[in-house]
C-alpha cells in the first residue's frame, strides 16, 4: 500500500535551493488535508548535514540519498536514484520545486515509471479526498484544474512563490540513509563547472523603484522613452527577457527566473504581458503598476494600478505628470 507525500529537496554543493522549503511546506499542508504524512528527501554526496536540518521539521521521515555519483547533478543519476527511492518509500505523491534542474529530470523520471508529472503548479484544492492541481495555460492567461488519472506514485512540481516556506511546521523526524545502486555506466552526460558570464554592475535588488520594459516596446529606438520615465521617477531601468535577448538592454537588467529577483517599493511594468518567468522575479514588489494594451494580460492580475492603453501615448504623458508631481 502506498501512502504519504514526499518532498524532494534541491541542493547544490551543500547549499539549499530555497524554493525547496516552499515545496516542503506544501507537502505538510497537503498531507494534512489528505490525512496522510509528509516526508522529505535530499540527494547528493555528503548530505548528512542537510538531512539533519530537515530532521527538525514535522515530517514522518527524512531520506538522505547518498552516492558518490550524485556529487554533481546529472539527469541519469538523479532519475536512477529517485526511481529506487520511490520504490522504497512508496509515496502516493512526490513534490518538487519547479526549478531548472527539476525541469531537466522530472519528466524523465515520470516517463520511466509510466506517469506524467503535473508541472509548474500554482495552487491546489482537494475534492473527494483527491488533490486537484491548478496550472496556468497560455503564459498565465488561463488557469486549468488538472487531476491525476493514474495510480500512485504521482508527481508534481510547484512554481516559485506558490507556497509559503514560513508556514513550515517544526517537529522531529528520523533520518534514513538510502544508498541507491548506480554505476558510472548509467551516467551518459558529463557535467562541467558552473560559471557566470560577467560581474553584475547593476544591483536591481537595491533599487526602490524599477521601471521595466517588455515586448510591447517593439523597437530598440523606443527604449529612451521608457528611460525618460525611469529618470523622472529616479528609478532603475529593467526589462523582461525578450528585450535583453534582443540586446536592447544588457542581460544584467533582466528581471525574472533567469535574471534577477526584485522586490522594490514600486515596480512599473511597461508593455510586459506578465509571463510566469517574469512574474516570479518581481511579484514580491510592494506596489505594482502596469501599462499594457491588452486588458487580459496576466500582469494585471498582480497589478495594484493599471492603465489599459497604447504605451507610446501613455508613457510620455506619465513622464510629464511625474515631473510635475515631483516639482510641486
Amino acid at each position, binding site marked *: 500500500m502506498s501512502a504519504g507525500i514526499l518532498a524532494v529537496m534541491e541542493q547544490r554543493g551543500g547549499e539549499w535551493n530555497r524554493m525547496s522549503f516552499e515545496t516542503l511546506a506544501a507537502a505538510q499542508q497537503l498531507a494534512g488535508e489528505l490525512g496522510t504524512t509528509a516526508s522529505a528527501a535530499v540527494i547528493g554526496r555528503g548530505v548528512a548535514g542537510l538531512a539533519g536540518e530537515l530532521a527538525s521539521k514535522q515530517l514522518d521521515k527524512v531520506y538522505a540519498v547518498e552516492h558518490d555519483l550524485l556529487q554533481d547533478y546529472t*539527469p541519469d543519476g538523479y532519475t536512477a536514484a529517485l526511481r529506487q527511492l520511490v520504490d522504497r518509500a512508496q509515496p502516493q505523491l512526490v513534490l518538487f520545486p519547479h*526549478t*531548472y*534542474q527539476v*525541469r*531537466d529530470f*522530472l*519528466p*524523465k523520471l*515520470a*516517463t520511466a515509471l*509510466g506517469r*506524467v508529472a*503535473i508541472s*509548474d503548479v500554482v495552487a491546489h484544492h482537494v475534492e473527494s479526498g483527491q488533490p*486537484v492541481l491548478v*496550472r496556468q*495555460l*497560455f*503564459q*498565465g*492567461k*488561463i*488557469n*486549468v*484544474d488538472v*487531476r491525476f*488519472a*493514474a495510480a500512485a506514485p504521482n508527481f508534481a512540481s510547484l512554481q516559485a512563490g506558490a507556497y509559503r516556506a514560513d508556514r513550515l511546521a517544526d517537529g522531529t523526524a528520523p533520518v534514513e540513509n538510502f544508498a541507491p545502486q548506480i554505476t558510472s555506466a548509467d551516467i*551518459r*552526460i*558529463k557535467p562541467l*563547472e*558552473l*560559471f*557566470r558570464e560577467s560581474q553584475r554592475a547593476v544591483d536591481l535588488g537595491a533599487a526602490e*523603484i524599477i521601471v521595466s520594459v517588455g515586448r510591447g516596446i517593439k523597437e530598440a529606438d523606443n527604449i529612451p522613452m521608457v528611460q525618460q520615465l525611469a529618470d523622472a*521617477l529616479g528609478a532603475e531601468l529593467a526589462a523582461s*527577457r525578450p528585450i535583453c*535577448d*534582443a540586446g536592447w538592454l544588457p542581460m544584467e537588467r533582466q528581471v525574472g527566473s*533567469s535574471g*534577477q529577483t526584485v522586490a522594490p*517599493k514600486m515596480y512599473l511594468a511597461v508593455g510586459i504581458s506578465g509571463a510566469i518567468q517574469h512574474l516570479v522575479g518581481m511579484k514580491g514588489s510592494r*506596489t505594482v*503598476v*502596469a501599462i499594457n494594451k491588452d486588458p487580459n494580460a496576466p500582469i*494585471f*492580475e498582480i*497589478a*495594484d*494600478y493599471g*492603465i489599459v*492603453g*497604447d504605451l507610446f501615448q501613455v508613457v510620455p504623458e*506619465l513622464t*510629464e*505628470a511625474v515631473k*510635475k*508631481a515631483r516639482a510641486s
Partner: protein
Amino acid sequence: MKIVVAIKQVPARDSQLRIASSAKWIEDADLSYEINEPDAYALEAGLQLKEKHGGEVIALCAGPARAAQTIREALAKGADRAIHIEEEEMGAYDPLAASRLLAAALKSESPDLVLTGLQSDDLGYGQTGVILAELLGLPHATIIMEVDTKDGGIRVKRELEDGWFQHVEMPLPALLTIQSGISKLRYATLMGIKKAKTKEIKRLAASDLGVSSANPSITLDRVYAPERTKQTQLFEGSPKEAAAQLVEKLKFEARVI
C-alpha cells in the same frame, strides 16, 4: 548530422482567448495559428547546425490538418523534409502519449540529434523534449544556449537560474531542448517558399504508429479565467487623464513618489 526538430502549432501569441462552453479548452474555431515560438528557436538552431556541419533537418509535427501550414513554413525556412502525424484530437493526448507519437514516428529515422523548444506557449508543460529523450533512450540536456561538436559527441551550454551557466558533454545521438531568444530567427525567402512546395511531407496517422490517447495519466478537469489576487485600480480616459490619475494615486495613496 541528421537533425530532427519537433515543432508544434499553437494559437498566435496575441490571440484573444475565450473559454469554450464545455470549459475543457478554449474556443478554437476562429483563432489563427503559428509555430510555437520556442520551437522556432529549436528550428533555427537545427538549421544553423546543418549549415555548419552538413546533413539534413527534418521537421516533425503532431497536429491536425491545419498544422500543415506551420510545417510548410519550416520547410520554406530550410528544413529538408517533414513528418506530419495527422491527429485532429491532440487535446486527448497527455504529454506522454503525445511524445509516444513523436517517438514512434522517429523509429525508422535514427537521427543524430533531436531538438525541441523549451515549452509550448499553449499547454506549457515544458516536458515533451525530456519525455521524448527517455522514450528514445537518448541522453539529453535542457535549456541549451549553444551547441558545439566535440570528439564525436557534443558540448552544450546549459542555462541555469540566476545568471549561472554550465557546459555539459554527451555522446550522440542525443536530445536537446533549446532556449528561446538565443539567436535571430530567419525569415523564409521567396526561393525558400518556392522550394518548399517540392519537399517531401510524410503523413502518418496515430493508428499507423500504434499509439492511442486512451488511459491518460493526467486529465484536464476545467479551464477558467484566473481569479485576480489583487483588485487592480484601472485609470480610464485620455492618456493624459489616465496618467494624471495614476500619478495622484502613486503620490497620495501608494506614497511611492
